[in-house]
């Protein structure tokens, strides 16, 4: 039971990450590999506010999301000028720089030593210390993120995002300032990733920069490629499958070290096979 709860919490966190990246990659066609950076910024802001400032989790989570959004805004101003491969490379650059800052701004982040002992959330005297209560909280946040994303994708804004993915230049002729749309969706996605980061920090109670590097960005990306680009449900399904996969591998009886590597092999092969035979992913409508 507890084990199931643990996986369910991790699933919710990664589903939020997948949904938020889906808006950027799947809907808008911007291949961002900086997402783990915003996940990390949210996690660090929440961790530091909880631990050093003694703030309540919920306002801290809000500030974490806003902090991620602010950084995303500054990066996005530059990044929104690019498209396709160059967008991916630019975001890679910023992702690595964000990681370097988390790693090396030691006065604030304690660098590679990480931040231990992050407290669990509290609301009106109730502490979300049991995993069950934490799962409830994560599900509520996941639901909120999903509902908001759904609202977004059904709006005229969502339609414009998809048109950007298809032909940014042609869309601009119809009066859309496409770079503002790209900036907006990047900032919104970063805010959601910040929420996921805060949830992660308070759940695991320990964070260090290693959880927010480029490899993690690539992992989040593989969630939505597997689930299917351009589909919110696909993002959720992708997160579910890839969170359960390593457990299945462990169940088969690999040692932890081999299981970790086998997981990587399966991710890799999955990506290749999907690209060869089903580039739209499990549930996606949109082909890259």
């Amino acid at each position: 039971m507890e084990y199931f709860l643990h996986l369910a919490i991790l699933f919710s966190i990664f589903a939020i990450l997948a949904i938020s990246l889906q808006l950027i990659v799947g809907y808008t066609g911007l291949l961002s590999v900086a997402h783990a950076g915003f996940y990390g910024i949210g996690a660090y802001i929440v961790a530091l506010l909880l631990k050093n400032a003694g703030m309540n989790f919920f306002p801290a989570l809000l500030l974490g999301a806003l902090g991620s959004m602010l950084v995303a805004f500054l990066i996005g101003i530059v990044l929104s000028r690019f498209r396709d491969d160059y967008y991916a490379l630019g975001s890679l650059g910023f992702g690595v720089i964000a990681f370097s800052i988390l790693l090396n701004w030691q006065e604030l982040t304690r660098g590679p030593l990480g931040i231990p002992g992050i407290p669990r959330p509290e609301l009106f005297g109730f502490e979300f210390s049991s995993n069950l209560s934490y799962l409830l909280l994560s599900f509520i946040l996941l639901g909120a993120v999903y509902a908001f994303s759904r609202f977004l994708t059904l709006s005229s804004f969502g339609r414009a995002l998809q048109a950007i993915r298809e032909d940014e230049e042609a869309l601009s002729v119809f009066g859309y300032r496409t770079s503002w749309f790209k900036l907006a969706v990047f900032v919104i996605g970063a805010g959601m990733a910040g929420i996921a980061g805060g949830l992660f920090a308070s759940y695991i109670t320990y964070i260090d920069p290693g959880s927010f590097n480029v490899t993690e960005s690539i992992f989040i990306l593989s969630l939505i490629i597997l689930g299917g680009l351009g589909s919110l449900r696909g993002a959720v399904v992708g997160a579910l499958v890839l969170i359960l996969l390593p457990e299945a591998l462990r169940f088969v009886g690999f040692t932890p070290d081999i299981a970790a590597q086998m997981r990587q092999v399966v991710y890799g092969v999955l990506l290749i096979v999907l690209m060869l035979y089903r580039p739209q992913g499990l549930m996606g409508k949109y082909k890259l």
Partner: protein
Amino acid sequence: MQEGKKRNVLTVIVLLIVLIGGAWFFAGNLKTSVTGPVRIGVIHPFTGDAAVYGEPMLRVLNLAAEKINAEGGIDGYPIEFVVEDGKCDGTAAANAAQKLVNIDKVEVIIGGFCSGEALAAEPITTAAGVALFSSSASNPKLSGISPLFVRNYPSDSSQGVVLADAAIANGMRKIAVLQEQTDYAAGIYEVFDAQIQENGGTTHKEEYTTDSYDFRTSIAKLQAERPDGLFVIANSPVSAERIFKQLKEMGWESSLLVSDVIAGDPTLVATHADLLEGAYAAEFGVDDNNPKFREVIDAYSAKYMTEPPFQAYVQTGYDAVFLIAEAIKEVGYDGEKIAAWLRDVESWQGASGTLTINSNGDPEVGHRLEVIKSGKIEVVGE
């Protein structure tokens, strides 16, 4: 169609709340009681650079458990280890602690091997009332961190002081430091730097991440400072190996100080005998004449056809299992009681000698100064 969908969603939400709420209620009323094998959690590194410790240390723990089990176990029940990979990394250790505490429901954990593992796991185990016993984490910050944390390996506050005093005594005033970015290494540096400054010296530090491979520019920068000595604080012999190779290539000349994990690896010391000639180290020493120490070394050599490396950790790891077994026999399978018992240990005889735990949860022992001579460790002043 639209209406029906909404109703479905609502039903699912209600069901979820009922399910989760119900499970919550029942989960609160469950208690684990021990009627079978005694489960002890282990958080050691099995992947990454520090994996060089994980495997031999697990062997040592198993040797201890086999001996205890052969002699009747704990009240007739055998000891079983639940082993998790802490990767010498905080996140992995925190995950491992979460799993051991919440899923395996252990009451006592041996670990983390690395200070970073212990620092990350401690808040989780403490909150859950689980005892955390480290036989190797040496960061000074762990002293008195929680009533539920105990260790039988000394704090690096003594390693840093012993080495700093040796440096000053040998006329070093300006000391270059190459420090791995881990809690263990940072802890040693902090103490070392304070002690050097107190004695009118200075340090120049360059840090490196565990996955660094190219130290040339850092070395060049330190070389340009023209220091009297260089203190290499590596968290594992693996990064030390890379550093020594490049130090040699770049013709490093001034004398060296090395952290205890380097001195604890005889192969590494032998391989770089010429570079390390005259280098100082401070280790928590081993006593070859202690029969309990011989017991574990012999058992290990017999079973695995090779002498165990890192013998300072072998002795404390071996003792850890016996101490915990004794604690459970005395006070039962309860984390808080086990921790309380362990913190009261006085003049206990084990492979690491006579052990007394002080009020900080640290052992009343320290590091001794050693010097490397033709690829071998010699204790200074014996």
